[in-house]
């Protein structure tokens, strides 16, 4: 049995492709799909993946509603890793849920 979400309704989409965003620098306990190495870092929205059940809720037996907009964000490797040894043009992309993003 799944339980209804404790979160409030997600707003309509906040960000668009090409916009600069920052991943929140936060360390809440529990199941999170936001890797620590991108927290506090800023990048560019690469694409909007759609709305998905919130994994932070699913992990604890809730129904994951309301769904959260999922974005792919592109980061410059040199901004993620001090002393990054690869090319200037190297990038990393991953998926971040909207509630982890703020305008940068």
């Amino acid at each position: 049995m799944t339980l209804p979400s404790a979160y409030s309704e997600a707003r309509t989409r906040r960000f668009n492709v090409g916009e600069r965003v920052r991943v929140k620098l936060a360390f809440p306990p529990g199941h999170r799909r936001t890797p620590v190495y991108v927290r506090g870092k800023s990048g560019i929205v690469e694409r909007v993946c759609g709305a998905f059940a919130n994994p932070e809720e699913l992990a604890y037996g809730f129904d994951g509603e309301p769904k959260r907009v999922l974005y792919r964000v592109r980061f410059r490797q040199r901004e993620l890793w001090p002393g990054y040894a690869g090319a200037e043009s190297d990038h990393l992309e991953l998926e971040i849920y909207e509630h982890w993003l703020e305008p940068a």
Partner: protein
Amino acid sequence: MKHHDHDHSHDPSFDDGPPSEHEIMSRAIQELLEAKGIISGEQLRRRMEQFDTDFPQRGARVIAHAWLDADFRQRLLADGKRACAEWGIDLEADRLIALENTPRVHNVIVCTLCSCYPRALLGMPPTWYKSENYRRRVVREPRAVLREFGTVIADDVEVRVHDSNADMRYVVVPMRPAGTEGWSEERLASIITRDALVGVSVPKP
């Protein structure tokens, strides 16, 4: 407790020593599901067989077709799941993003949080893909990791790492190598390896 009596082959290293806590939990859940009549041992065995033998063939087939059919390639890049469905390949829950290698960009895939992988397209992930070593290092020193796989990416080519950390799954569309002109789709598929579809290697004729 019933011992596993299915006939698929195990990596022998996993059979050494007492079962881990997760293995015990997984077997207990299996036995409960069987006892309640929700799944049968035969269904489970068939599923494992598919992961071992059917699914790993799918990726190469799809990519070989994309090399030969420009329209299909565009559909694959636009919506990987739908393009695979054209071939009767049901990716189930996976949404697939196909990443195109070009003379300017080389793509490589990892899941730093666990071992997310397009299983319905490539089968089960290899052991190294799940290793902490690969997961930790390929995001921060991808070129060094690729070099260890024998793949040297020129400095003027961007290396783009994709961390498969949430709801998307990924496959690399490698560049078709020179020297394969006039090859049939089947022959092309034969050089498209799993490692090339993860991006730690490139196809060679």
